[in-house]
């Protein structure tokens, strides 16, 4: 019988379908969602595919419920996921915070469209990247990945699930309408070539187990419902046992753990792709669909003998500050094209510390940059 979990082989599919396949391949067995353009295709694929592998698809009454349900399913021991776009992402913020506070692994795919509010439902945007970082109230660490192609939608959804299990928290796949609706070749590797991180479970006696241990740089193993550990899981500030404790002393430990587990492991988490960076005088910093245009612009400039480079962000968060810091003294400018009025550009500007010019090429949404525009911007600094 054919392997229904990992559809090994070459496929011609769009990015949204590739996100769904990545989830199923890495073992996602619960999806809760609510229809929204341009992410609906992820849910549609899941509705058809999850029953084939014995998983559960449920369409909830809204995105608040979808996010809550995937947290519940995760505590029930299943790898779980939802997908949405801007308006739904806003609704999910409440329970994303619960997921961060309760250290609950799961994956949220945001196929970004242009906002604010209902904005341009069918057209591209990249203006939720700061919301991904700071959207839910309070402090927490954030992992967000930005695919540039359907292939990466598959690869990074797999990776997002692995990171969610390792760091025990919701992980974001920040796709966009163009990537989600681009149909291209996607190669799904054989099952044995796929890197899959399974949930790290406790083995010690109940009396020895601290489900929210904050001592080390990594989260505690996770006991799920029925494992016999009787864990109390709360969105209140809690001690290492999970008991609510309403004091500044425990708050200090609790929140610093949530932030530090990402901060201390940032170098392990961060992924970028560098193109012609060794001798670049002008570096384009781009992600998602915009990185594809930027790559074309950089290659065109190289063909004409200009020293342009591309730093493609695969992880948006944690942000690769150290790479910008290294590049800043030896480049003339960073060009940051993004489909918003300036979001990731602030991180570039902040970490360049005035050592290089930083240029935002903002589009408010509904269109992508042209290679020519980016080439012109590069040309201004050569």
């Amino acid at each position, binding site marked *: 019988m054919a392997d229904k979990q990992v559809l090994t082989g070459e496929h011609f599919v769009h990015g949204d379908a590739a996100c769904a396949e990545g989830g199923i391949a890495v073992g996602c067995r619960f999806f*809760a969602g609510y229809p929204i353009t341009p992410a609906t295709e992820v849910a549609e694929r899941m509705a*058809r595919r999850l029953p084939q592998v014995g998983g559960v698809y449920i369409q909830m009454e809204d995105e608040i419920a979808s996010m809550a349900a995937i947290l519940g*399913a995760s505590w029930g021991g299943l790898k779980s996921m939802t997908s949405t776009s801007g308006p739904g992402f806003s609704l999910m913020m409440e329970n994303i915070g*619960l997921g961060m506070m309760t250290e609950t692994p799961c994956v949220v795919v945001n196929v970004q469209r242009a906002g604010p509010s209902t904005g341009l439902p069918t057209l591209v945007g990249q203006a939720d990247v700061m919301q991904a970082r700071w959207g839910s109230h309070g402090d927490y660490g954030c992992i967000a990945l930005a695919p540039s192609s359907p292939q990466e939608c598959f690869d990074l959804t797999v990776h997002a699930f692995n990171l969610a299990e390792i760091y025990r928290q919701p992980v974001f796949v920040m796709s966009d309408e163009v990537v989600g609706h681009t149909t291209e070749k996607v190669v799904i590797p054989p099952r044995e070539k796929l890197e899959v991180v399974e949930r790290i479970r406790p083995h010690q006696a109940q009396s020895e187990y601290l489900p929210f241990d904050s001592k080390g740089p990594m989260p505690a193993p996770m006991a799920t*419902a*029925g494992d016999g550990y009787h864990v109390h*899981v709360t*969105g209140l500030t809690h001690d290492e046992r999970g008991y*609510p404790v309403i004091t500044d002393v425990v708050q200090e*430990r609790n929140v610093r753990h949530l932030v530090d587990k990402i901060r201390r492991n940032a170098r392990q988490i961060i992924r970028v792709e560098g193109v012609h960076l060794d001798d670049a005088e002008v570096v384009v910093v781009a992600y998602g669909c915009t990185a594809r245009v930027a790559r074309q612009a950089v290659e065109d400039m190289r063909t004409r003998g200009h020293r342009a480079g591309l730093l493609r962000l695969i992880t948006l968060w944690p942000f690769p500050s150290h790479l910008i810091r290294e590049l800043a003294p030896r480049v003339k400018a960073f060009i940051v094209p993004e489909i918003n009025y300036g979001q990731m550009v602030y991180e570039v500007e902040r970490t360049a510390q005035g050592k290089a010019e930083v240029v935002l090429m903002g589009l408010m949404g509904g269109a992508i940059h042209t290679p020519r525009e980016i080439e012109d911007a590069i040309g201004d600094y050569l």
Partner: protein
Amino acid sequence: MKRRLRELQPFDKEAEERAIELGHGLHPDDKYLKPGRIPHIWCPGCGLGVVLTCFIGALRQKQFGVDECAVVSGIGCTGRVAGYLDMDTYHTTHGRAIPFATGLALAKPDTHVAVFSGDGDLFAIGGNHLIHAARRNVNLKVICVNNFNFGMTGGQAGPTTPLDAKTSTTPLGNAEPGFNLPYLAHASGAIYVARWTTFHPRQLVHSIGESFDRTGFTFIEVIAPCPTGYGRPNKLGSGLEEMRYYRDMSEIRYGADPADAEIKLRGKILVGTFEAADRPDFMETYRTQVIARAQAGGKGKGRAA
């Protein structure tokens, strides 16, 4: 940047264990309670202790092991129930206990998942989730403790506050009528609907047990005193006096039409089991229809129309 932070005070596991009362374990109910979590935070005269005790009574009566159950709560006074029980317990966000529990119940279909929350949590901010879970017939045992106000925040009006009742946000009397919860749960599709007061602990234990016997969405409303938040402005007296009110004004009527179950300020309280039906729950339908068709490759008898 450089960071200057206070020195962390590490978790002292031994000190925390020493702080657990030596008496823990002496009472037969203690095996259902998390060590070190009692005394609870509820006010004198509050009805929540009675409801918690009845829940434990039902677990004992059903001879459920604690690992066969999980409890999910929202936010509020009732939301704190989860934290006292020594089982897998989840204290979620305000109003979201039901969708969280939906995910948990579908991931662990063999676990008894109870949702313990208040009227404000389940019917104001969480109202939409409740009606949809009832419609889907997700296998959840919902216990709604109704004290007619938002107690945790200090006695504000809620979705069950009766017309004319006084609260801190309706100082001149409530201009809105309250929800009739059994009627709403019934109309939304709950397969089991009952209401009791904290004056009816034996009936309540029995009712919780009955709800555990059924696979699907069950709903039990428990009318409970809140002398601090709701009793005082409405001159209902102490918790004991509210219990006298329940004794005098409750009418047990099994099989009553839930449409008749509205509660008015100082009015009659209809109690009993109003609905006990059977229909396949979400998971059964999903397994026998959706998964079966998918695994048959969309072919054969199970094929969708």
